[in-house]
C-alpha cells in the first residue's frame, strides 16, 4: 500500500515540480506594482503558448508553426465576444449581427476561443497528419501565413489591418496562472498516456514505426488538437491582456519567440517548455531594459533596437549547436532518489531524444 502510494508520487513528481514552478513564478508579481504584474501575466501567457507548442512538437518531433495561428483564432474569438457591444457598435459597425451584441463573461469567452481553435486544429489535422516531418512543418507554415493574411484583410470580422480594440483587460496573474496549471497538467497527461507514449516511440524513427504498423495519425491528431486548444487559450488571455491588437501580433516575431523558448528549454520535455519559457521571458525582460538604454550612475548608456532579438537568436543558435537538447537536456525533472534511470545513447540532436519505454522498443525490427 505504502509502496503503491510512493510509486504514484514518483510518477507525479515531474508534474508537481512544474506546477510549483509556475506558481512560484506567479508570486513574483507580489513584489512589484502594476508593471510587474503585467510582465508576469505575459510570462505566464507565453508559458501556456510554449506548452501548447510542446504538446505537439515535443511528442511528435514535427515542428508546428500552427500554434500561433491557433493563438490568433483564440484571440480574435475572445476579443469579439467580450468587447462591450457599445464599443462594437461605435467602432466596428461592419461586424455581423450576432457578434455585435455578444457580451460574454471572460472565462467563457476564453474557453470558447480555445474550443474554436481546437476545432480549427481538428479540421487541419485531417489532411495534415498524413504528412511526414518536414512537409508537415512546411504545411503548418503555409497555414500560419494564410491565417495571418486573412486576419490582416478580413474587414468585416477582424477589421483588417486596423485590428480590434477596446477589449476589456480582464487577465490577471491569477487567471493566467490558473490556465497555466491546467495546460501543464493536460500536457503531462497526454505525455504519459498510451497515445503520448506511442507518439514518442514513432518520433525516434518514423519509418520503422510505420513498418511495424504503428500508424500514429490518431495520436498526432490528439496532440495537435490539444495544442490547438491551449494555443487558443493563450490567445484569449493575450487579447484580454493587451486590450488591442491586429493580425501582425500573431506572425513571425511571436513564432520565433515561442520556438526559442522551447528549443532553449529542451524540445522533448515538458520541463523544457516550462523552464525554457520562464528563462527566456526573464532574459527577454533584461534585454529589453538594456535595449531601452540604462543608467550607470549618472551616465546614460543609450540602447539600440534589435539588440534583444540578436541576443535571443544567438542564445538559440548556441543551444542548437552546443547543447541541442536544451537546458533540461530533453529530460523531465525526475524524483532524484528513484532507482529508475533512462538510458542515454550516443550523441543526438534537438529533436531525436530519449529512450522510449522498453515495450515499444522491442517491437522495432532491424535487419
Amino acid at each position: 500500500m505504502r509502496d503503491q502510494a510512493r510509486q504514484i508520487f514518483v510518477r507525479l513528481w515531474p508534474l508537481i515540480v512544474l506546477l510549483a514552478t509556475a506558481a512560484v513564478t506567479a508570486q513574483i508579481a507580489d513584489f512589484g506594482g502594476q508593471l510587474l504584474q503585467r510582465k508576469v501575466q505575459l510570462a505566464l501567457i507565453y508559458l501556456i503558448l510554449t506548452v501548447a507548442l510542446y504538446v505537439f512538437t515535443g511528442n511528435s518531433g514535427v515542428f508546428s508553426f500552427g500554434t500561433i495561428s491557433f493563438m490568433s483564432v483564440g484571440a480574435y474569438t475572445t476579443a469579439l465576444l467580450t468587447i462591450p457591444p457599445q464599443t462594437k457598435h461605435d467602432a466596428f459597425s461592419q461586424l455581423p449581427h450576432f457578434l455585435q451584441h455578444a457580451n460574454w463573461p471572460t472565462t467563457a469567452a476564453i474557453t470558447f476561443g480555445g474550443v474554436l481553435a481546437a476545432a480549427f486544429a481538428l479540421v487541419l489535422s485531417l489532411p495534415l497528419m498524413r504528412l511526414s516531418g518536414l512537409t508537415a512543418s512546411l504545411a503548418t507554415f503555409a497555414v500560419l501565413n494564410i491565417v495571418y493574411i486573412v486576419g490582416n484583410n478580413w474587414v468585416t470580422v477582424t477589421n483588417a489591418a486596423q485590428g480590434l480594440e477596446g477589449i476589456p483587460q480582464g487577465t490577471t496573474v491569477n487567471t493566467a496562472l490558473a490556465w497555466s496549471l491546467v495546460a501543464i497538467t493536460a500536457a503531462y497527461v497526454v505525455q504519459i498516456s498510451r497515445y503520448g507514449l506511442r507518439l514518442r516511440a514513432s518520433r525516434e524513427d518514423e519509418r520503422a514505426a510505420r513498418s511495424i504498423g504503428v500508424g500514429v495519425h490518431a495520436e498526432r491528431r490528439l496532440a495537435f488538437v490539444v495544442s490547438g486548444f491551449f494555443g487558443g487559450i493563450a490567445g484569449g488571455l493575450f487579447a484580454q491582456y493587451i486590450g488591442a491588437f491586429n493580425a501582425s501580433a500573431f506572425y513571425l516575431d511571436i513564432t520565433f519567440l515561442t520556438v526559442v523558448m522551447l528549443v532553449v528549454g529542451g524540445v522533448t520535455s515538458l520541463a523544457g517548455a516550462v523552464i525554457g519559457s520562464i528563462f527566456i521571458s526573464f532574459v527577454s525582460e533584461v534585454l529589453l531594459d538594456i535595449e531601452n538604454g540604462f543608467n550607470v550612475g549618472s551616465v546614460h548608456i543609450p540602447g539600440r533596437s534589435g539588440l534583444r532579438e540578436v541576443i535571443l537568436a544567438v542564445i538559440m543558435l548556441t543551444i542548437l549547436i552546443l547543447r541541442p537538447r536544451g537546458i533540461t537536456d530533453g529530460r523531465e525533472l525526475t524524483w532524484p532518489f528513484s532507482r529508475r534511470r533512462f538510458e542515454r545513447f550516443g550523441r543526438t540532436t534537438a529533436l531525436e531524444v530519449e529512450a522510449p519505454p522498453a515495450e515499444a522498443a522491442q517491437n522495432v525490427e532491424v535487419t
Partner: protein
Amino acid sequence: MTALLLSIDLSKDFLLQNLVNAISLGSLYALIALGMALIFGIMRLVNFAHGDLLMVGGYALVLLAGPPWPVLLLATLAICALFALGMERIAFRPVRNASASTLLVTSFAVSYFLENGAQLIFSPLPKTTNISNTLIQSWQVGAIYIAKLNALTVALTLVLLALLGLFLGRTTIGVQMRAAAEDFGMARLLGVRANTVIAMSFAIGGLLAGVASFLLVAQTGAVFPTMGLAPVLVGFVAIVLGGMGSLQGAVVGGFLLGLISVTLQAYLPLTLRSYRDAFTYGIVLLVILLRPQGLIVARRERQRV
C-alpha cells in the same frame, strides 16, 4: 458587377507591359528559388536565411556606392557567396546530421540573427542607394517601356542558368553534386566529400542571391533589414510548386510565381487583391497535400525489363 469588369484593363499594351514586368520579376524569383532548391536538394534544408543573403548584398551595395555597376555586381556576388559559406560553416555544419525540422529551425534562428543584426548596425529604416543611372533608362517599343535593367535581368538569368546547367552536367564536382542530391549516403560511400559538395551548393546559392540582390536594389533603390523576407517566402513557395529538390522545377516555379503575382495584381478585382498571397499559400497547401512531387511533370523514365 459591371464596375468590377470595367476596372480590368484588357488592352494589348497593358498585357505586354505586364508580361515584361512578369518576366523580370519571374527571373528574380527564379534565381532565389534556384539557390534554395540547390541547397535543399543536397541537405534537405529549407534555408529561411537565404533571403537575408539578399539583404547582405543590399547593404554591401549601400556601403560600396560609387564604382560602375559591373564592378558592383561582381562585388555583390562575391560577398554574398562568402557570406553563404560562412553561414554554412558556422551555423549549419554543426547541426548537419539533425532532423530536417531542426535544420529548419536553425535557419530560422540564423535569419532572425541576420535581420536584427542589420537593424542593430544600420537602423531599421531603409537606406537608399542609386546603383546606376544607365540601367534605369529604358527603351520604348510602341507603348511599352523596357528598362535596360529588365533586359539585364533576363540576360543575366539566362546566362546563369546556362552556366549552372553546364557546371552540373559537365564538371566532376557537378556530377558529384547531382549524385549527392539523389542519394547523399551512397555518394559519400563512393568518396564524394560531404563538406565540399555542401559548401559548393551554398557558394552557388550565395552567388545567385548576390545577383538577385544587385538586380533588386538596382530596381527599387532601397535596402532595409527585412527585405529578404518576401523573397524567401517566394522561394519557399516556388520550391514546393516545382517539386522539392527539383532544380528545373524551382526555376519554373519562380517564373510562374512572377507571372501569377503580376497577373493577379493587374487583373484581380480590388477587393480580392490583398488576398492574393493567401491564395498562393492555399495553392501551396494543396500541392503539398495532393501532389508533393510538385506541379512540374518530370520526364518519366521507363525501366527496361
